[in-house]
């Protein structure tokens, strides 16, 4: 059997309730609209009750496993810093991590039994080529709803994937009810323009770590 040419692997992780499943779905539908083979893996049920959530999305000429192997992820959208650390082993050394800096304390930390790890961004940046940390929750609040942080992330990611913008529009329209589309499209556009606006260099030339505080 012929090995498929390059497959793109994206990890989306965070805490149940952050819109990770929806973001994964939009990304996968966009890949399908772009004419690619695509697989997406996630888990429902018990874990969604405020637990750690991870979605794997893979697309390319032909995709076999729905799960990404260790050190094979090209992109990680981490909706919560601790979850970036938890799934760091998935990252390829030439990968890109997007981190939302808004913490959500897990139960052992909330009750004072364990400490929330420090220096997450520096631990993560040692492992990857490119890391961008933003406060997506605050940015989403400024757009009008903290829940659209997921679309800000997708907007940023979109700059690195090369799908035409019309495909993203289609995917968002296919996955989000019409009453919620306007704010989600605004959040996506915000994310899509964010890096160029803040860093003033084209995305492909971004190397190293960028912490964008507001």
């Amino acid at each position, binding site marked *: *059997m*012929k*090995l498929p040419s390059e497959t793109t692997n994206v990890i989306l992780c965070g*805490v*149940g309730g952050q819109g990770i499943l929806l973001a994964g*779905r939009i990304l*996968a*539908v966009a890949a*399908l609209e772009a004419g690619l*083979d*695509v*697989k*997406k*893996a*996630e*888990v*429902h*049920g*018990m*874990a*969604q*009750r*405020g*637990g*750690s959530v991870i979605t794997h999305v893979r697309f390319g000429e032909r*995709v*076999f*496993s*729905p*799960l*990404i*192997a*260790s*050190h094979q992820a090209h992109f990680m959208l981490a909706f919560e810093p*601790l*979850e970036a*650390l*938890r799934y*760091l*082993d998935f990252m390829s050394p030439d990968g890109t991590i997007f981190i939302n800096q808004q913490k959500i*304390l*897990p*139960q*052992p*930390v*909330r*009750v*004072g039994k*364990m*400490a*929330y*790890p420090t220096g997450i961004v520096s*631990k993560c940046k*040692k*492992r990857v080529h490119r890391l961008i940390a933003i406060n997506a929750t605050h940015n989403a609040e400024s757009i009008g709803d*903290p829940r659209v942080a997921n679309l800000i992330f997708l907007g940023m990611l979109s700059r690195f994937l090369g799908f035409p913008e019309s495909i993203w529009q289609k995917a968002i329209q296919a996955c989000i009810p019409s009453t919620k589309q306007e704010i989600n499209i605004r959040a996506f556009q915000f994310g899509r323009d964010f890096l160029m606006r803040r860093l003033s260099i084209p995305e492909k030339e971004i190397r190293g770590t960028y912490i964008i505080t507001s």
Partner: protein
Amino acid sequence: MKALLSGNEAIARGAYEAGVIFASAYPGTPSTEILEAIAHYDEIQAQWAPNEKVALETAAGASLAGGRALVAMKHVGLNVAADPLFSLVYMGCPGGLVIVSADDPGMHSSQNEQDNRWYARAAKLPMLEPSDSQEARIFTKLAFEISEKYNTPVLLRITTRIAHSSSVVTLEPRAEHPIPPYQKNSEHHVLLPVHARKIHPEIEARLQRLSRDAVMQKCTTILRGNSDVGIITAGVAFHYACEVFPEASFFKLGMTHPMPVDWLFEFALSVRNIFVIEELDPFLEEQIRALGIEVTGKDRFPVVGELNPDRVRQGLYGPETEKKEHSHEPVSDEIPPRPPVFCPGCPHAGMFWALKKLRFRVTGDIGCYTLGALPPLAAMDSCLNMGASIGMAEGMERVLKDSRHPVAAVIGDSTFIHSGITGLIDLVYNGSHAVVVILDNGTTAMTGHQPHPGTGRTLKGHSTHKLDIEQLCRALGVPHVEIVNPYHLDDVIQALKRAKSAGELSVIISRAPCILLEKRRLGAPLVIDMNLCKACNVCLQLGCPAIERVGQQYRIDPAFCVGCGLCARGCQLRAIVSSDDMMIMN
């Protein structure tokens, strides 16, 4: 036309295309979305059953009458439906009947890791195992063809990774399946011993015939590659193996019972080393070894847990390959776990807090409320299977006889209807003095808020008779039944005290809707007045994710708090107040 569908949605699509007219299930992760997706098709009568046994029995009736029928359940659901299953293989199903079993390797949302492929062998029915969504759709249709041709139910066995992974599916139109005139055939459909004795040899013969049927060609994928390494596999493990060792020769089974024995022999002769890669038990491996074929299997690939590309790679190449390539320091030992927790404002939390305060021994059950077993509440002694809490409470109470630690069963409304009612009849009949707490949040919460007979709504959204749990308990003969609002902690404690000292069986119905269904705040967010707080830690014991402690400081996150007020009622120092009141005071 192409679509991105989960395995569950693809099975629903396959059922639609196959002309299914009846489908039933009881919700259970990872199978739940199958019926939810089928319910969107107007052509199919889709319904929730009170449990999996009833679901299978209704489908058996639909199929006996000549209609194509599908039932879906999680792996442990098939244990509940096992009684009709084994005999239905004898009775047959003239209209065609497919049973979907969704297993959960890795126990993402289950109490055990059983491998339901053994059911196919034990009950002697054919089994298909798709490896992605496209196959899930195609195999569902094939399963109906086989079911009808051989007059047997067919097991469609999937796993969490098939159910909840999405991939590209080609859609085909529905083929209506005309219902033949009904024919009474009591020699085949009334399983008296005299009839069943004649049927058993037919079952053995049809499995033999099926293993050489032309349908095997549609189920089996043979890929000729390297003649040194041959991989025999099925289900999602096929894709992991393709990823890891694309140059190997592959024999992928779609039908894993009965197996295409002749082709397996041919394949075995064409390759030097054979690996059997399968999730969970050595189901294929043992049968292949029994044919006299030498294989490597569970000595290299784990029996326990879910497979993934990394575990398959380690099995094929040895554990060291990975380490050499990536020798950075591990990050895993310092990461706090993030276990699932009760939602902020969950009505169950107060009941567990009270049960713990009154030192009850608590037999638990299956649902969101099983989280009451985890710290800080840690208010549950057992959780076995659906409905087990009630019978176990009686058994524990008979043995313990300890008035300082009374025994209470805790069970949700949907679980009570699923299989708690017969247990409660036993407690009444045998004169138990246990306390049974029914946590009635008006939905099947854990699996995503499916309606059940106590909600007065059907899967298709129609209104129907609403089962009255209180009246049911009284009709069963429970001497002491009362209803409490779980947010009123004092009332809960008084009710538990009354039940404890009643000297007879008590049922307490703890009734408040699931907070996720409310979709609104119950009040203004609460705040902790640090002038009054003595850091006693009682509020944290409620397990509410909105309350956190930073050093000696306690705070309530206003973004998470839904204003249920439970913590304020639990605080003896009255240090927790509504943010509205706090503003007035200031």
